[in-house]
């Protein structure tokens, strides 16, 4: 069973793949070699509404049955609660195309693996309202987390939080030196709390700024991926802050431009030397064209440049 979601700006994609062994009972139904795998989408709010209160679910629900009734166009979720009470929800669904972000963790230059607890304890230092955070590698194999501050912000009025994690806090570190990426912390928090609750180690695959960062959780019966767009590291005098990396790519149609809004405005990252304790400064980046592939985060229905993607 695969559950996937993408946000409206197409800058975040999540996928949960449950192996049959995850369930007490798994019957994929009659799908011959010729029949297409069944795919549908349901309203997130409706789906979440069924699992509204986690503590009360834990207390009163014994079993959950998920049943797909394609002919009735209903996804049935049945909760078997204590005292013999049964709650049945019949959700309307829509058939849909395959939702898949194109990414390849093998192609990522850097990889970090840590118990979720380590990252959760690190992230707790940042305010809940913080949008973006920068993850970087420094001397001595140290890994840094720093809140991302826009260049326009007044230096005297902004608070910067930076923390360093030693290499031995991680289960594995294989990173390109001096690399860093900036991604949306808010979206990451969701996955992090799931990882913590399920006690699974988290692997972070990343590459150059602008290329998506992929967070994975691996278990024998569960495979989780979270793909987030990262801030691209462009310096371009000809670009206005509101433009995205589109100008560097083969001329796409307007629809593509909408989807690529997720690639945030190109900015130069620069660091002055800090007078405080040894904290590495990120090297000034020389401008170079973004290599972000427009198909990286598109839905995969024969994504051909110039073809408008399937609009939801």
């Amino acid at each position: 069973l695969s559950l996937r979601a993408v946000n409206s700006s197409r800058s975040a994609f999540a996928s949960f793949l449950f192996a049959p062994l995850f369930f007490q009972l798994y019957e994929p139904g009659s799908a011959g070699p010729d029949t297409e795998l069944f795919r549908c989408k349901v309203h997130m709010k409706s789906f979440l509404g069924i699992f509204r209160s986690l503590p009360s679910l834990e207390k009163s629900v014994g079993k959950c049955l998920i049943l797909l009734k394609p002919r009735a166009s209903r996804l049935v979720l049945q909760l078997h609660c204590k005292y013999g009470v049964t709650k049945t929800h019949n959700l309307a669904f829509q058939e849909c195309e395959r939702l898949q972000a194109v990414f390849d963790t093998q192609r990522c230059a850097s990889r970090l693996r840590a118990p979720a607890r380590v990252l959760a304890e690190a992230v707790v230092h940042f305010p809940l309202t913080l949008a973006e955070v920068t993850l970087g590698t420094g001397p001595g194999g140290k890994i840094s987390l720093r809140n991302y501050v826009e260049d326009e912000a007044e230096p005297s009025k902004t608070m910067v939080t930076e923390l360093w994690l030693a290499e031995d806090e991680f289960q594995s570190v294989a990173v390109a030196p001096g690399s860093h990426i900036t991604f949306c912390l808010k979206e990451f928090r969701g996955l992090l709390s799931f990882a913590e609750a399920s006690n699974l180690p988290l692997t972070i695959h990343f590459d150059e700024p602008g290329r998506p960062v992929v967070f994975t959780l691996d278990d024998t019966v569960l495979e989780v991926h979270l793909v987030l767009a990262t801030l691209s590291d462009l310096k371009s005098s000809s670009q206005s802050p509101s433009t995205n990396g589109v100008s560097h790519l083969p001329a796409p149609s307007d629809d593509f431009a909408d989807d690529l809004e997720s690639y945030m405005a190109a900015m130069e990252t620069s660091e002055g030397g800090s007078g405080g304790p040894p904290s590495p400064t990120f090297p000034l980046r020389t401008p170079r064209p973004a290599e972000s592939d427009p198909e990286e985060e598109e839905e995969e229905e024969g994504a051909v440049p110039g073809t408008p993607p399937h609009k939801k």
Partner: protein
Amino acid sequence: MPFSAPPPASGERYALSASLDNARHLSSLLRAVHFQDHATCFATASGLRVTVEDAKCIQANAFIQAEIFQEFSVQEESVMFRISLSVLLDCLTIFGTSSLPGTSTALRMCYRGYGYPLMLFLEEGGVVTVCKINTQEPEELLDFDFCSTKVVNKIILQSEGLREAFAELDMTSEVLQITMSPDKPYFRLSTFGNAGSAHLDYPRDSDLMEAFHCSQTQTNRYKISLLKPSTKALALSCKVSVRTDAQGFLSLQYMIRNEDGQICFVEYYCCPDENITEAEL
């Protein structure tokens, strides 16, 4: 502690006069039926009944027997008046709604008769508040003609099992459908909202089911907005009885135990929804 109010100047006795050591015994019950601004109070020697109605479809009654009061006397055969329930509740809780252990508001209620206001004397910690609430002409109340001989289906459930269900009812659904049957699904609550339909089934052999007397399969729909206020009564109660008659009229009776362990009742009556469309599953 109770205290006596001065007798009326003319030397007549009050039509209704009552004392209550703990005003909460009255206010919590009245809150359970407070879904409209006005209520009709009806007092006889047996006690006080407060009725609230809406849309000519729903009626809630709160019963406070004479035994709950420290003092309760009704001069005529019965006394009836209409009053603002919102104002009455505000007065009864004038010393605040939070209940500190050991403290309680004492109440004395006096009503001279037709045309006179309802007088309330409330005391807590030596501080006395006097309230005078205007009364109005009582309006005719709905008679659901619901008596035990006409009941087709009846169940008694422990409130604990229904509380969460009622609090989480899908309010995007216009109706709450209640199915009662001697066969499966036995007792089912259904909603048909924007997300789709939802069914809550209680089997007849559930631990929550104290009594199950269903002779006929009945499915009736009621406007959810009318029944939602009954959640308050459900929250206070320990047991609830659900009964329907041949016309599909619904009676919900809630057994409420107050702080002193005394039992009071609140009941809701509701007409079935006339706009019946085919139930989707």
